[in-house]
């Protein structure tokens, strides 16, 4: 079937794409057209729908197992239904993955030719079929060499991938795609995220070169300056909606940032409160955290008495690592002080004893004892750390069931936890109520500082509001210092007094909640200081 209109030729044409996961709409009305030889930037925050769109393009099983998608995909003007990643490969669509799809124990050649090995018939194959043909390493090496030469890589093709520098691995992945003869569309998923600046420059040059040879490139990234530099056109997604498609000449970094973040804010943002004259509650100096995927590389930050500090940023930039590092869940280095007292790092027990409490982002994993009652979940940390709810009977200790019950009932009432009673097991609770149990447990410790990570993740909209209100109330009524980490900028802006944005493991800056969308967009993509110079000073 040919496309019915327009004289222009598109290698890839995705029309009116939509997708629902279990009744939740994640994509609707996305249109994406790719001309041969163009670099097309796809921009969007986390959760904007970029990865879902790519999953649809590659026919990932996660799409087909959840009821498929809406809309049509045309490759070279021909309507196509892509069932699996392998089929996408046959149709000429390739991807350079963010997490490398390379086998470390294999040579570069073996990786480039993975499952596309060149074989020659041997003795066994005559008897037992094509699968037993021997690999023709020489021919494979030659092909690999050709692909590597295209990229200008000098590295020997028989070297094992295991010891290669990260940038080389990225190039090996690209070489693998280039080696596929029918390649028409190449998707780069955050390719520069793991590279140093000079390597990133080389990568961008190679991308231009590949595009000039007639292959269309989909460039998924949040680095706006790179898009501005090499893309021909951009498409911006936000909350699963197609926001705009523009020629690169018609836009600039500010405009892109605005399109990416800009949403009408339905909820009132908190008032920015001047921090002057307030006592510093927690001092973070030169903090490094080794949390895989969320590295923190040297953060300085002051948190003031009685404030709600929001920590925002894109996924993988390190915002999650901050709280996890200070609480001792991942290896960390640096200096953290609470009320002038130094916090012992790498030791969750000491951190808890010093009056820090943490509501983890991994609620079901490390936050709750899922098959244990609500009351015990609330009391368990305090029993362990502070010997609350414990009575002594001679040399033995016993838990004080009466006091646990009383306390649990009070918490259930105060936080409005909807349950059948304090003995219900937490697995049966809804996400919002589970979160409240986590908060109740943290409160039982009477913490000086409360860390809350992704408090509304996986909770329905109504419950979100309740959880946020609870935090707000704690802050107002008890003057509790709260550090809330969240991927949702809107909710950070709703309750925090100040918002710190983390980018590439460092503090990009601190903004008041009523700062403009452009400022937030620029900070999250790490462009703020490049664009604004040293105009705005950051705290800490």
């Amino acid at each position, binding site marked *: 079937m040919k496309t019915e209109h327009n004289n222009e030729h598109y290698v890839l044409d995705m029309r009116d794409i939509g997708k629902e996961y279990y009744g939740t709409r994640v994509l609707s009305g996305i249109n994406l057209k790719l001309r041969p030889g163009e670099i097309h930037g796809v921009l969007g925050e986390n959760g904007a729908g970029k990865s879902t769109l790519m999953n649809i393009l590659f026919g990932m099983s996660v799409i087909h197992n959840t009821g498929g998608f809406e809309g049509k995909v045309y490759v070279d003007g021909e309507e196509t239904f892509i069932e699996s990643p392998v089929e996408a490969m046959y149709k000429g669509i390739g991807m350079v993955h963010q997490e490398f799809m390379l086998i470390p124990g294999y040579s570069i050649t073996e990786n480039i030719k993975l499952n596309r090995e060149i074989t020659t018939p041997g003795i066994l194959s005559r008897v037992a079929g094509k699968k037993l043909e021997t*690999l023709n*390493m020489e021919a494979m090496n030659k092909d690999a060499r050709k692909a590597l030469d295209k990229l200008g890589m000098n590295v020997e093709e*028989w070297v094992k991938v295991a010891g290669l520098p990260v940038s080389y691995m990225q190039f090996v992945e690209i070489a693998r795609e280039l080696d596929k003869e029918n390649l028409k569309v190449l998707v780069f998923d955050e390719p520069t995220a793991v590279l140093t600046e000079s390597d990133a420059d080389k990568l961008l040059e190679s991308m231009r070169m590949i595009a000039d040879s007639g292959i269309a490139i989909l460039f998924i990234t949040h680095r706006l300056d790179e898009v501005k530099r090499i893309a021909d056109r951009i498409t911006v997604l936000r909350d699963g909606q197609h926001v705009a498609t523009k020629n690169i000449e018609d836009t600039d970094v500010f405009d892109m940032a605005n399109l990416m973040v800009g949403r009408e804010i339905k909820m009132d943002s908190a008032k920015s409160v001047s921090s002057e004259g307030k006592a510093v509650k927690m001092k973070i100096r030169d903090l490094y955290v080794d949390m895989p995927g969320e590295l923190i590389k040297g953060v300085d930050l002051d948190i003031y008495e009685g404030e709600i500090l929001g920590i925002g940023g894109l996924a993988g930039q390190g915002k999650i690592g901050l709280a996890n590092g200070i609480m001792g869940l991942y290896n960390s280095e640096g200096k953290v002080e609470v009320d002038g007292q130094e916090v012992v790092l790498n030791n969750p027990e000491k951190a808890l004893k010093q009056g820090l409490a943490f509501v983890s982002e991994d609620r079901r994993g490390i936050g709750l004892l899922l098959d244990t009652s609500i009351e015990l979940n609330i009391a368990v940390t305090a029993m362990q750390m502070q010997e609350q709810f414990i009575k002594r009977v001679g040399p033995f200790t016993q838990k004080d069931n009466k006091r646990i019950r009383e306390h649990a009932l009070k918490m259930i009432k105060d936080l409005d936890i909807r349950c059948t009673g304090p003995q219900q097991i937490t697995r049966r609770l809804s996400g919002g109520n589970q979160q409240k149990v986590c908060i109740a447990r943290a409160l039982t410790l009477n913490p000086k500082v409360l860390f809350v990570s992704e408090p509304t993740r996986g909770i329905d909209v109504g419950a979100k509001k309740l959880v946020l209100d609870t935090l707000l109330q704690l802050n107002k009524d008890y003057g509790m210092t709260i550090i809330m980490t969240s991927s949702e900028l809107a909710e950070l802006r709703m309750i925090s007094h100040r918002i710190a944005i983390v980018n590439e493991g460092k503090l990009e800056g601190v903004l008041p909640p009523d700062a403009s969308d452009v400022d937030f967009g620029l900070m999250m993509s790490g462009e703020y200081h490049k664009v604004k110079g040293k105009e705005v000073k950051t705290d800490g």
Partner: protein
Amino acid sequence: MDENIKITPPEMSLGQKIKKILTHNMVTVFFVVLCLIGYYYSGLTFGFLLNDIVTRMVRNSFLVLALLLPVMAGMGLNFAIVLGAMCAQAAVIFVTHWGIVGLPGIGVTILLTTPLAMLLGYLTGLLFNKAKGQEMIGGMILGFFSNGIYQLIFLILVGSLIPFNNETLVLSSGVGLRTTIDLADGLKYAVDDFWRLPFTTAGMGFGALMLVHGVIRYIKGIPSLGQKAGNKKYILSSVAGVALAGWLYYIKGTESFINFIKVPMLTAILIGLMCVFTTYFIRTKLGQDFRTVGQDRHIADVSGIHSDKTRLTAMIMSTVFASWGHVIFLQNLGTFSTYGSHEQIGFYSVAALLIGGASVTNAKISHALLGTLLFHTLFIVSPLAGRNLFGDAQLGEYFRVFVAYGVIGVSLVMHAWRKQLENKRRLSQQ
């Protein structure tokens, strides 16, 4: 990429090199030392030890080699070769019952056992695909479970439901097989006796082969792996070949006991063929798929390799080879315990492979052969050493069993430990 980076490991001093070799081969070095001590205290002459080793190597090597393919496909040590061994035993029992002797008997045994082993291998593979990551413990339990079925058939059904009229094989009650089965008038030495050569002649031939192989590789190198001609390794192997041949030539002129050792050539050749097949197989498309699936199942799937199917193939092949290996094992032994032999060889083969330096994720032919050699040396010398040292052969016997199970535990722990160290190093480098 304008600058050309050199990816060569940093130069190491001789001391560092030795240290690296020792730490990388902890398990093997430990057992070499143990074997030497055991040999010293056993009071055995070298010739006598060599004779026993030759017999046992020929008996067991094929079985140990059958373990290599599943390791390659990332399924760990295949304790389910017990199933292959059961197939072989069942076939041997029937062939003995029918009274088919010699090589034709072996032929019929193979014909019977192969389809059965394929079926059981397929079923095992299905099970393992449902229990990824638990293959080893799964295989072990599967071994125990199928032993129950095996016993049901041969202890209860034979003679009652299955007509089986044979006074020498069946218990006096007429139902169930006797606990040991003697192959003396049947399959014993059926393969071994086909062609025997003196150890000296066979060894000199092997030395000559090593020389030729070493010279060819030295001149040609392995171009596809980037290995250039002139690798010193091959001079060493050629020299070793010459030395072996020279030493045996010298022995030939003496009155040594070694002159009386005979090597069953057909069995040795079969083991050799298995080695050649394995090496050749690694370089085929299917072999490459095995390795890819073994290294990373997710990447394999994304590249379009059907990992489940590949794993199934690996299990079928391993089970079939194991059943053939067990036929070779039984004909060499000449007698076997009806209800225990198959269970034993599973553990012994795995232990042998581990002693040779293999791990759950990496096993080579050299590991299999060296491991078989060390394991059996220890088996031969430990009861004697025990008797000489403590005046009690029981103690040595105890040690022998202890070794078989202990080594599996020790090397699994060592492997896990090394992996942990590597993870730590990787994190601190980031």
